[in-house]
C-alpha cells in the first residue's frame, strides 16, 4: 500500500518512517503488507485493501460500525493497530457472501428490513456472526446482548434483532439438512427454543 507523507525536512525525514511487514489472512486470502505501526486496522482494510464495507463511524471506540472478526472474535478495527493483525485471520462484511449467494445474515437483514441507512449494518452483521458461530440458537435477549456494542441511529433495533433471529433459523435449518425458508412470515422467532 502506498502511503504519502509530508516532507518536513530535517524534522522527520521520510527515511525515518518506521515500516513493518506483516502477513495476515483476510476473507480467506493471504496478504502481505508494509504498514506504519500507527496505521489502524480499519484503515488497512479500507484503504490498503479497498474493502470499504468496513465503516468508520465514531472513531472513538463507541459505535461498533468498524467491527470485523479477528480470529473469529468481534473487534473494533478502529481500536486495533494494523501491525497487530500480523499472523491473524480477519473477516470483513465482504467475506460473508459467496459469488452467487448472500450469507443468511445478509438475507435476514433484507427479509426483515434490518437496515435503514445501512451505515451500522456491516458491524451489526459481524457481531451477529460471532454470536451465531458460538451460539446457533440464541434467544432474543442473547441477540440484544451480543449487539449491545453496535449502535444504530435509524432502526430502533427491532428489525435488526429479527434479522439475526431469522438468520439463526435459516442456518439451523441448513445445518439440519432441511434447507427450507425459516421464520418467513413469522417474524418473531424469538427465544422459542431458549437454549443459550
Amino acid at each position: 500500500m502506498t502511503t504519502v507523507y509530508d516532507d518536513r525536512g530535517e524534522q522527520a525525514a521520510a527515511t525515518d518512517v518506521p515500516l513493518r511487514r506483516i502477513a495476515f489472512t483476510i476473507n480467506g486470502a493471504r496478504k502481505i503488507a508494509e504498514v506504519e505501526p500507527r496505521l489502524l486496522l480499519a484503515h488497512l482494510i479500507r484503504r490498503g485493501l479497498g474493502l470499504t464495507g468496513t465503516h468508520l463511524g465514531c472513531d472513538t471506540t463507541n459505535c461498533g460500525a468498524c467491527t470485523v472478526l479477528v480470529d473469529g472474535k468481534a473487534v473494533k478495527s478502529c481500536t486495533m493497530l494494523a501491525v497487530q493483525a500480523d499472523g491473524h485471520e480477519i473477516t470483513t462484511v465482504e467475506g460473508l457472501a459467496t459469488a452467487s449467494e448472500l450469507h443468511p445474515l445478509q438475507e435476514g437483514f433484507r427479509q426483515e428490513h434490518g437496515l435503514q441507512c445501512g451505515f451500522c449494518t456491516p458491524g451489526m452483521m459481524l457481531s451477529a456472526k460471532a454470536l451465531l458461530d458460538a451460539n446457533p440458537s440464541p434467544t432474543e435477549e442473547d441477540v440484544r446482548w451480543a449487539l449491545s456494542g453496535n449502535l444504530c441511529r435509524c432502526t430502533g433495533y427491532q428489525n435488526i434483532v429479527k434479522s439475526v433471529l431469522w438468520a439463526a433459523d435459516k442456518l439451523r435449518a441448513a445445518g439440519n439438512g432441511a434447507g427450507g425458508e425459516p421464520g418467513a412470515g413469522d417474524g418473531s422467532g424469538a427465544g422459542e427454543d431458549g437454549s443459550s
Partner: protein
Amino acid sequence: MYPSRFRYEAPRSLTEAIGLLHTTESAGDQAKVLAGGQSLVPLMKLRFAAPELIVDINNLPGLDYHRADPDGTIRVGALCRHADLEHSALLASTQPTMAAAAPLIADPIVRNRGTLVGSLCHADPQGDWASVVVALGGSVVAQGPGGRRSIPADAFVTGPFENALAPDEIAVEAVIPPPQGVPAGGYLKLERRVGDFATVGVAVALDTAGGTVTRAGIALTGVGGSTIAATEAGQALTGKVLTAEIIEQAAGLAAQAARPRTDHRGSAEYKRHMVRTFVTRLLTRAGQAAEAERAA
C-alpha cells in the same frame, strides 16, 4: 484519526519486553505497554497520549490465564480478556463479585480485547475492575529488571490515570486472596447505555461463615477522583449478621464515603443516593444467601 508516530516492538518474551522498557532512551512516559488497547489506542488517537515506543505484549506466551490456586487464590494474567472472565466457569462458581462485574465492562466487542490488568493500569476513576479488585483486597504483581513485587490494589492506583508502576515494570498479574468463608457479593453499575462509563458503580465483596460476615470490602466507581474504598462501611459489617439495621448502617457509610460531582450523568445528590441503593441491594441479596446457607 491517527496516533502520532511511534516505534513499535512486539517482543516474544517478558524479559525482552522489560528490557525494551528499561532502555534509557525510552524511559519515563515515553514508552507504553499495549495489551488490549481499548483505552490506550483511543487516547493515542485523540493525542492525549503520544508515547514514543509501544511495547505490544500480545505475543507474550502464557499470560492469558485466569486460574485458582489450591488455597483459593485467584490469579488473572495480563492477557486475560474481559470476555474470558465473563464466560468463566471458575468465577461463576467461586467469585460472585468478579462474575457480576465482567459482563458489565464496556460492551461485548471491547470485552473481546480489553484486559482486567490493563484496566487496573489505566487507572480510570470510572474503571470498574479497580473497584472490584480493591473490594476483594487484591493486588497487582509487577515485574521489572530486578524481579517481581506485589502491590496492593488500593496502593496501585495513585491518582486519576496514574499507577505505582516504575517505567520499566510490567503488571503481569492481578491476584485475589483466598476467601475466609463463603464468598458473597456482587457488582452493580448504573450506566446510561451499554458501553458508557459508570454513572455509579458499587462493588461489594464479602466472605461469610455461618451467616456471619468474616470479611467485607466495598468500593465505589465513578463517584470521586479515583476508585474509592469505603473502608468504614466494610468494617461496620465485619463480625456481624446481615440484618436490615446493619445493612442500612453500611449503606449510609458507603454513601458518606462517596465524593460525587454533578455532571451530565447526574447530580451529586442522585449519585450518592444510588451508592446507598446499590449497597443496600447487594447486601440484602448477600444476606438472603447467607440466611439460606445457615438454614441449609
